[in-house]
């Protein structure tokens, strides 16, 4: 069986399992699964910028927050539902990404300086929103919650099962989009830029334009995860949603899973979340109570992956499953 065939079959199996999950799992597992998908989706969005185009963004919480506040603000102040809110969220995030990208690329900022620039923008926005009374300020923005037993997709109000499927759909769409992007002209240009930007420029590629495209797509995708967050949790605090720890949480999945791969972010998010919960359970079973153990474990995992598996854990697994040609 050719690797492509095998990959397609495994993918189909995974989809079936994911779609059927709510019917067999309790609501606790469902909430964990929704969280995994959330990080998988956001990680995939970040991956477009980093894994594909090689631009390290450490302030991605900026887009999650902007998207969330845009949609939530619209709903809170004008009663406009999330489907319209999405457009505003995307517009705001695209604008922010474009500004950051433009400033960075026009002025030749790359690598760690670019990363610091993204951090600075995220922090700046966090403190800014802390003083924005119209959107709740540090007190937080609370959207009116209406418990519906039925699904109200129009207003994103409904059961946890609905939210799970929404997130699943988003993740699947992101996966498909990234797969298409990788095989398109953009994908090849990005690879060229990632490997050696000067050589790419010498070949006549307009690196500025393609880098901007990566940033903008990544920002737009992340906006959607922000909108989901707003309507799933129904409250937003600048301290939490723009915080640098969120940015780091977002990038852990793709890096551990595999930068630039399609499946890496999803696998990474799943492994991390399950590991985290597993540790908590183990500690509870052992009757131990040591705050900070989980994070140390995260750090050790990250360290291990960075040192020994720099391309993430997905490539060796993919090879083992016979999904690559090598």
């Amino acid at each position, binding site marked *: 069986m050719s690797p492509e065939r095998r990959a397609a079959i495994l993918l189909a199996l995974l989809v079936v399992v994911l779609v059927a999950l709510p019917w067999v799992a309790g609501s606790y597992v469902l909430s964990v699964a929704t969280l995994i998908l959330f990080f998988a989706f956001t990680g995939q969005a970040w991956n477009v910028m980093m894994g594909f185009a090689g631009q390290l963004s450490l302030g991605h919480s900026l887009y999650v927050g902007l998207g969330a506040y845009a949609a939530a603000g619209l709903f809170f102040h004008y009663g406009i539902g999330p489907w319209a809110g999405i457009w505003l969220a995307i517009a705001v995030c695209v604008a922010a990404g474009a500004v950051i990208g433009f400033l960075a690329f026009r*002025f030749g900022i790359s690598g760690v300086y670019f990363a610091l620039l993204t951090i600075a923008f995220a922090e*700046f926005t966090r*403190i800014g929103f802390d003083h924005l009374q119209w959107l709740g300020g540090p007190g937080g923005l609370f959207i009116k919650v209406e418990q519906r037993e039925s699904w109200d997709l129009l207003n994103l109000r409904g059961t946890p099962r609905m939210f799970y499927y929404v997130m699943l759909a988003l993740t699947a769409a992101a996966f498909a989009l990234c797969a298409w992007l990788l095989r398109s002209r953009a994908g090849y240009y990005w690879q060229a830029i990632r490997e050696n930007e000067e050589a790419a420029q010498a070949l006549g590629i307009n690196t500025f334009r393609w880098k901007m495209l990566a940033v903008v797509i990544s920002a737009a995708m992340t906006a959607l995860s922000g909108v989901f967050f707003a309507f799933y949790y129904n409250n937003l605090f600048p301290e939490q949603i723009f915080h640098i720890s969120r940015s780091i949480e977002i990038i852990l999945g793709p890096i551990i899973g595999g930068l630039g791969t399609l499946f890496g972010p999803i696998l990474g998010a799943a492994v991390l979340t399950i590991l985290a919960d597993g540790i908590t359970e183990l500690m509870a079973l052992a009757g131990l109570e040591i705050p*900070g153990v989980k*994070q140390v474990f995260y750090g*050790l995992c*990250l360290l291990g992956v960075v040192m020994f598996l720099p391309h993430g854990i997905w490539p060796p697994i993919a090879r083992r499953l016979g999904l690559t040609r090598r």
Partner: protein
Amino acid sequence: MTPDLIANVVIAGLLTGLVYGLMALGLSVIFGVVRVVNFAHGEMMTIAMYAAVLLFGALGLDPLLAVVPVAVAFFGLGYALQSTLINPFITRPEHSQFMLLVAVALIMVNALLMTFGPDARSVQVDYQLESYAIGPILIDKARLLAAGMAVATSAALFAFFRLTLVGKAIRACADNHLGAQVVGLNVKRLYALTFGVGSACVAVAGCMMILLVDVTPVLGPAYTLLAFVIVIVGGLGSMPGALLGGVLIGVSEALAGLLIVPSAKSMFSFALLILVLLFRPQGLLGKRT
């Protein structure tokens, strides 16, 4: 807004800025020479602060004196860290180095949390709450001493790099990595030495900082960020630049706090960072590469 108020605030900002500058100095040295983005910088300073707290608690050692053992210990630790963990990463892509140190930082913060718990710790030296009064100006004694130590350490560092053979060799590495290897310098050892020296700087900064601020395990990341802002504003690889950057940030934050809403004063530093990155990425005193 009386002149007294402004003067008091500016002087306090200046003194604090010097201590920040010392912290950034360590980063500048490391970044300027080894070109490694030490994202665990703030965490290292936090560990130094805890070391000072422990020494004070066990031996009653004033942080001004504890500087010596802690700096020596950190020199060793920095040397070891560079030789074992970081060296293989010099040739790896930047984001790999970055993630390595993020992982190290994560482990450090939470190991501290596991060891010391979340409560704030401090040293209670006698002069902690004293201040000198010069007319209407009140100068915080602890702050003055800390700033003094910062200046002294910077001067010592400066002398090291200008006057000693090792120091000159390290500067050679920074200026021209390949050239240094060509003339036969043991670059690996020099890198480790530099990391050690940078870490010792951080240790001194930590011992000074504990006089001003209580330490908690989660202090690290904010200081890492601050150190980067200062280093970039002041100029990479420039030691006076680090001090200048520190003072600039210290004073501008103080003034921003005075003139606009104090809770937004950090926005100012980030805005400054963005501006410097865009218009003068080599920093105020750095050299264009």
